[in-house]
């Protein structure tokens, strides 16, 4: 007998059944539906089901409704209903494209009798389009008196005509029928069945009619089942109270799950349970878990209204297991929970990353927890969590040594996406190697906790190098034991100033194995040809879909061009008489991000015309940077030539150690021996820092350096010298910052003394020539090549400290010294004064720490090479994307000329040359000439003004301006292109006016030497009180007198205005107000603003000193005169997968809106957010590149256009989005929302600041 079942009443479609109680419907129609649907609703989901009550009129009014077999299709309405199910979490696994397809294909089988409100259910066949719920083998529903099934079937592809099921597929389907109906299909009736099905993606759908089922289970059994189930409709679904069962569990399994729940979670039935395969699997996992009791306790504690599902139980298992493992390993800190309430039911997809490829004993290794963000679909609530709540991560680290189980603990908590934790691994004496297990117990604000581990192998330095050498030289025989110590010639500077390790390395000798044959040119050629062919094949593949891969093809072609260029160069070598030789190499990198391991070296040698042997090394490893390296050496023999080529190759690498081994040659004849070298990659530049930090050297430098600058500062030298260690601290901090490992803890280390260290030397601060920024450079150690750089704002902030705090400390110190001369240490008055001094010193320490920590965090203060002054800063922190000549050109220092040799024109203060022909060396020399000229102008100006040379600085600017500091020091800006003599005349004139103005405002002295007691004196006294400035002492004016006279000078002696401004600035309730006001007015003057134009900002302060401090800080972040806005582009606009390419990024807009130095003050909004001060275009681009990657992760599931996506980049929360332009995508939106250093300046404040900085 053959019985036939079909793929359903509407072939190729899957039904939504609209049951109106007709004879074919499984569920009765609603008798009183109108009463159940609120009048203002078109539909409403029936709680706990996939069914809806739907207003018939709404359904049939679908503008694109069309008829279909057995009913009709209402794509618009169905889409709304499906969206509702997704929103309720019922179809949460379904992909948007599947839902869209389903909306267009689901057929409404209308068995209604024209009621105004009808019941619509999602049939089992719908899952053939949408896909089955994860972990579900089949979905079954009663439809039109029979059953409809969607069954999982691996390998089935969607579409096409109905497929005929094979025996296994029929068995799967009938098994599902048995589980669903709890009826048995006798095995004899399973044979000879022919079932045709509609194919889905990995599923098939069939419809078994009432007749089919009577054939299979018997008429009585089917009738009984139909009567029992008559009240149910829709595919099996379980949400809400009660126990629901998915149909793919056997009776035994079902019973087991029920009993377990009853025994362990007795209240679960009231809260709702979904028993399915996934839940059963979790139950079995719990039973096998060593933490069973704890898990059940966690589950019981978590019971509280939510339905029990496999997901919720799994979450409890994860939580309990995590805590149990955390306890077991001995972490004693309390469970951190604040701000760590996950929004996802899945564990954080994290892994431990070790930021060092190989580890030697004593290495401090940074570890981090990296998250592989899954492309999850997020609902609206979760989206809000992403947008408005920062990522918070808490990590408990445990470093467990494998052999001894000794443990070291550490913990960190951070906001944002990334932080590192360093651990120093140390082997025991005599140990050569050991393994540690690194545990990270991670709690996260958005995901569930996870315990991750990774093993780490630690070796002695010697063992590590030995292994690297062995790996790299496999097949090249053995090395003789005990390599020779060798003193390399690493250059004059290194030899003179470098450390021992920089020029003292090792030389190796060994013997090649018998029968060794070196890699031939043909083999090398073949290797390169193979690589090029692979790339060509890839390009061809991409060209198969050119419209998708245009940009990827371009990238691949560029890569191929590089390979071909290298290949051509090697071919030309051969044509020039170079013959290749076998050379291997390996790198032991000590810089994070650079891989250890074998290098791809290509060696060649030849006899030169002068008889020497020449050796050339080409390094194609591209281990760092994209360029191939090439070095050359020559000598009387091969070894000498190889050494000469080796040293520059070695020194080209970042921190680490380089080893090479080559087949030895006698003349051009290959030997059976090998020769090799090994040397530290460090250079004197790196070592100088170490030299400066050497305690003995440091003391010498400090004493020498400070002694030269202490005149005029008197006793301040004593506290300063006592704590002098600033250079090391700032440099360390900056390095930490660059590596991204700067933490608040680091900031608190050693900063207290830093401001004190700098104050004595502030008189030596030099402005940085050639920079458009108001940057200053302080040479703390002349021989070190290092300098402390600070922004103008930082300079003023430190001055501020000096004026407010240190002046008092000095005053107290002087009195103490004076008392010491009259009494002894046991005198109670002396002891009291000492206590006062200590307390004041503590205050200064706190204030200094606060100020310096802020400056360092804002990148307003850092250490760099002194020589970098003109170059690094002009490039914006070293991340330049445009050539130096262009930077100089923007500053007016460089003028392009198509012909002739480049030169420096002192008559105009400009470098002239053809950028296309200018070499770096030439430009260096011309920049030096320009610097020398500026120094010459300083000397001339000092002479003109009859000032000491140390008090005069000249810097490049876009105008001719003289400013006179409080101590009389002069800073003058020179505008390139102007005749120096004319500029000097202007400087003299401006200086004369300033000095005359100040002289006019100086407090008059009475003939008898007593101070005046007029209004000015009263004001001075008030200033003294407001700023806690030292009072006048005999023979010199008080600090408050000087401060007041300076304020009056700035305001053209308008004492009424100054009084008013001091009131608005909060002189009545704050310290340092006058100094801050002076800073603001000076700043305004430097930006061409009048004193009156500062009033709006002061009115916002409205007498609140703290608010005024904040506002001045904000205003002075716009320190740079606006330069032309650059337009660098991120490097990853092209998506390697071709999925989301961008044509460009509107970086000009980003800089003009969100970077202080480029802010467009004509475009002020209600909120104006800024990247941290000091952020350069290169830094923004680096962040943007990360943002683009984040955008791509979210692209497929969530965000199509600009406006909705917030992403975490580093410590900052950024918003990013794109729009279209000229048919391509453009990044139109990228700005910081929150994070360290990010400032949001309100519209009114920004408008007031704009008055000062101009537009």
């Amino acid at each position, binding site marked *: 007998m053959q019985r036939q079942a079909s793929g359903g009443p509407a072939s190729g479609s899957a039904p939504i059944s609209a049951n109106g109680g007709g004879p074919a419907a499984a569920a009765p129609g609603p008798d009183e539906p109108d009463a159940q649907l609120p009048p*203002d*609703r078109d539909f409403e989901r029936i709680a706990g089901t996939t069914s809806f009550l739907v207003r018939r*009129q*709404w359904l*049939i*009014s679908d*503008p694109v409704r069309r*008829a279909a077999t057995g*009913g*009709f299709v209402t794509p618009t309405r169905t889409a*709304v209903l499906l969206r509702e199910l997704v929103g309720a979490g019922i179809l949460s696994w379904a992909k948007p494209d599947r839902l869209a397809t389903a909306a267009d294909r689901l057929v409404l089988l*209308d*068995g*209604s009798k*024209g009621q105004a409100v009808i019941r619509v259910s999602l049939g089992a066949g719908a899952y053939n389009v949408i896909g089955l719920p994860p972990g579900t083998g089949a979905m079954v529903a009663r439809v039109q008196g029979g059953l409809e099934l969607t069954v999982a079937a691996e390998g089935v592809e969607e579409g096409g005509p109905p497929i005929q099921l094979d025996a296994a597929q029929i068995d799967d389907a009938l098994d599902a029928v048995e589980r669903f109906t709890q009826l048995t299909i006798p095995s004899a009736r399973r044979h000879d069945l022919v079932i045709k099905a509609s194919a889905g993606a990995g599923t098939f759908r069939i419809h078994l009619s009432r007749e089919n089922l009577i054939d299979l289970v018997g008429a009585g059994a089917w009738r009984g089942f139909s009567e029992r189930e008559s009240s149910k409709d829709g595919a099996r679904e379980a949400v809400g109270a009660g126990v629901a069962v998915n149909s793919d569990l056997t009776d035994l399994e079902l019973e087991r799950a029920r009993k377990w729940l009853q025994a362990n979670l007795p209240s679960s039935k009231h809260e709702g349970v979904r028993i399915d395969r996934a839940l059963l699997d979790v139950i079995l996992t719990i039973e096998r878990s060593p933490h069973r009791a704890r898990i059940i306790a966690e589950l019981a504690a978590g019971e509280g209204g939510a339905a029990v599902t496999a997901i919720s139980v799994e979450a409890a298992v994860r939580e309990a297991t995590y805590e149990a493992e955390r306890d077991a390993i001995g972490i004693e800190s309390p469970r951190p929970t604040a701000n760590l309430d996950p929004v996802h039911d899945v564990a954080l997809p994290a892994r431990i990353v070790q930021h060092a490829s190989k580890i030697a004993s004593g290495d401090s290794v940074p570890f981090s927890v990296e998250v592989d963000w899954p492309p999850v679909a997020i609902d609206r609530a979760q989206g*809000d969590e992403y*947008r408005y709540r920062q990522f918070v991560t808490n990590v408990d680290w445990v470093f467990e040594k494998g052999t001894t189980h000794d443990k070291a603990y550490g913990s960190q908590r951070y906001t944002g996406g990334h932080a590192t934790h360093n651990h120093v691994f140390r082997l025991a004496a005599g140990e050569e190697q050991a393994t540690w297990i690194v545990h990270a117990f991670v709690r996260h604000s958005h995901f569930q906790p996870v315990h991750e581990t990774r093993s780490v192998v630690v070796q002695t330095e010697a063992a590590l190098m030995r292994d690297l050498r062995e790996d790299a030289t496999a097949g090249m025989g053995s090395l003789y034991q005990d390599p020779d110590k060798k003193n390399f010639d690493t250059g004059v500077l290194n030899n003179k100033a470098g450390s021992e390790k920089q020029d003292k390395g090792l030389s190796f000798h060994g013997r090649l194995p018998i029968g060794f044959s070196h890699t031939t040119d043909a083999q090398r050629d073949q290797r390169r040809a193979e690589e090029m062919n692979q790339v060509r094949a890839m390009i061809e593949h991409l060209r198969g879909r050119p419209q998708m891969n245009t940009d990827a093809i371009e990238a691949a072609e560029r890569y191929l061009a590089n390979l071909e260029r290298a290949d051509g160069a090697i071919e030309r070598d051969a044509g020039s008489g170079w013959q290749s030789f076998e050379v291997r190499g390996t790198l032991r990198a000590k810089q994070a991000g650079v891989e250890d391991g074998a290098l791809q070296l290509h060696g060649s040698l030849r006899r030169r015309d002068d008889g020497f042997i020449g050796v050339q090394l080409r390094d194609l490893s591209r281990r760092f940077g994209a360029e191939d390296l090439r070095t050359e050496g020559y000598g009387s023999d091969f070894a000498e030539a190889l050494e000469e080529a080796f040293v520059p190759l070695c020194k080209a690498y970042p921190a680490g150690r380089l080893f090479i081994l080559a087949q030895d040659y006698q003349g051009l004849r290959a030997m059976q021996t090998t020769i090799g070298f090994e040397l530290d990659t460090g250079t004197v530049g790196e070592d100088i820092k170490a030299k400066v930090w050497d305690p003995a050297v440091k003391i010498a430098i400090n004493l020498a350096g400070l002694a030269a600058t202490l005149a005029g500062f008197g006793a301040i030298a004593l506290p300063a010298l006592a704590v002098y260690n600033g250079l090391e601290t700032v440099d360390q901090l900056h390095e930490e910052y660059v590596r991204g490992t700067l933490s608040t803890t680091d900031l608190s280390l050693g900063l207290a003394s830093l401001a004190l260290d700098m104050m004595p030397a502030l008189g030596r601060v030099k402005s940085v020539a050639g920079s458009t920024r108001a940057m200053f450079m302080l040479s703390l150690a002349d021989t070190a090549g290092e300098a402390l750089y600070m922004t103008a704002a930082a300079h003023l902030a430190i001055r501020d400290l000096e004026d407010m705090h240190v002046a008092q400390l000095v005053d107290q110190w002087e009195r103490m010294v004076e008392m010491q001369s009259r009494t002894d240490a046991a005198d109670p008055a002396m002891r009291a004064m000492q206590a006062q001094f200590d307390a004041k010193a503590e205050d200064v320490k706190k204030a200094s720490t606060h100020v310096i920590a802020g400056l360092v965090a804002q990148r307003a203060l850092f250490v760099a090479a002194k020589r970098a002054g003109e170059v690094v800063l002009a490039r914006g922190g070293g991340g330049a994307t445009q050539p130096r000549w262009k930077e100089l050109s923007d500053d007016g220092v460089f003028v392009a000329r198509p012909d002739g040799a480049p030169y420096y024109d002192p008559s105009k203060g400009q470098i002239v040359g053809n950028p296309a022909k200018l070499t770096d060396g030439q430009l260096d020399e011309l920049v030096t000439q320009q610097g020398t000229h500026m120094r010459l102008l300083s000397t001339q100006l000092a002479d003109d003004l009859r000032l000491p040379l140390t008090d005069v600085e000249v810097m490049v600017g876009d105008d001719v301006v003289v400013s006179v500091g409080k101590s009389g020091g002069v800073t003058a800006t020179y505008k390139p292109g102007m005749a120096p003599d004319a500029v000097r005349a202007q400087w003299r004139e401006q200086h004369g006016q300033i000095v005359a103005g100040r002289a006019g405002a100086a407090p008059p002295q009475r003939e008898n030497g007593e101070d005046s007691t007029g209004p000015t004196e009263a004001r001075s006294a008030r200033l003294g009180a407001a700023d806690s400035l030292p009072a006048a002492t005999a023979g010199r004016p008080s600090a408050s007198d000087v401060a007041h006279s300076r304020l009056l000078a700035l305001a053209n002696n308008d004492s009424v205005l100054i009084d008013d401004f001091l009131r608005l600035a909060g002189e009545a309730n704050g310290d340092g107000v006058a100094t801050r006001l002076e800073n603001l007015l000076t700043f305004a003057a430097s930006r061409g603003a009048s004193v009156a134009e500062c009033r709006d900002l002061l009115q916002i302060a409205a007498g609140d000193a703290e608010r005024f401090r904040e506002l001045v800080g904000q205003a002075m972040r716009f320190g740079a005169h606006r330069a032309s806005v650059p337009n660098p582009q991120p490097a990853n606009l092209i998506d390697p997968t071709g999925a989301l390419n961008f044509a460009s990024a509107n970086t000009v*807009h980003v800089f003009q*809106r969100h970077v202080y130095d480029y802010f*467009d003050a*004509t*475009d*002020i*909004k*209600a*909120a*104006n*957010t800024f990247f941290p001060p000091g952020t350069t275009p290169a830094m923004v681009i680096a962040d943007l590149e990360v943002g683009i990657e984040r955008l791509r992760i979210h692209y497929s599931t969530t965000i199509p*256009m*600009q*406006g*909705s996506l917030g992403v975490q980049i580093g410590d900052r929360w950024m*918003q990013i*989005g794109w*729009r*279209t*332009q*000229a*048919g391509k995508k*453009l990044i*139109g*939106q990228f*700005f910081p*929302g*929150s994070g360290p250093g990010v400032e*949001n300046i309100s*519209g009114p404040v920004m408008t007031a600041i704009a008055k000062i900085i101009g537009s």
Partner: protein
Amino acid sequence: MDIEISIAETHGLDGVVTLAAEGQPDVVITDEPWHQLMHLCSAVAEFEHGMSAGIPYSSMPGGYQLSVDGDEVVLTGDYVPTVRYPRAELATAIIAATDVWLAHAAALPSVERDGVRESVAEAADAARAAVRPRPEPTEKTSDVP
């Protein structure tokens, strides 16, 4: 209540959108008008189905919410006052303002405007579809079994 939405472009695509209605404070949104109109049109489709909608700013953090309260829509958020508008009038005003912008974009095309015009037009179409009066039942419906 008459609601008037005016648009000004001051910096390329950037500018100001102002919602004015009698008896309500003006809502002044300094942001890219095309971006605001695109999102406002999407919001129409949402609040016509009784759902609230959030609209982010394009060039500064934050945004505002349009929540349905009966026949009214309540606008609340960052840097804007809280106001209430009749739902239907607000939808009409948004679509009208968007049409004005689209006409402006057609009359004064630029690379930037051309790029985003399609997105704004799509959103406007969706808004129009959402507010289109639903067809009354006709005899034709009797063909449904």
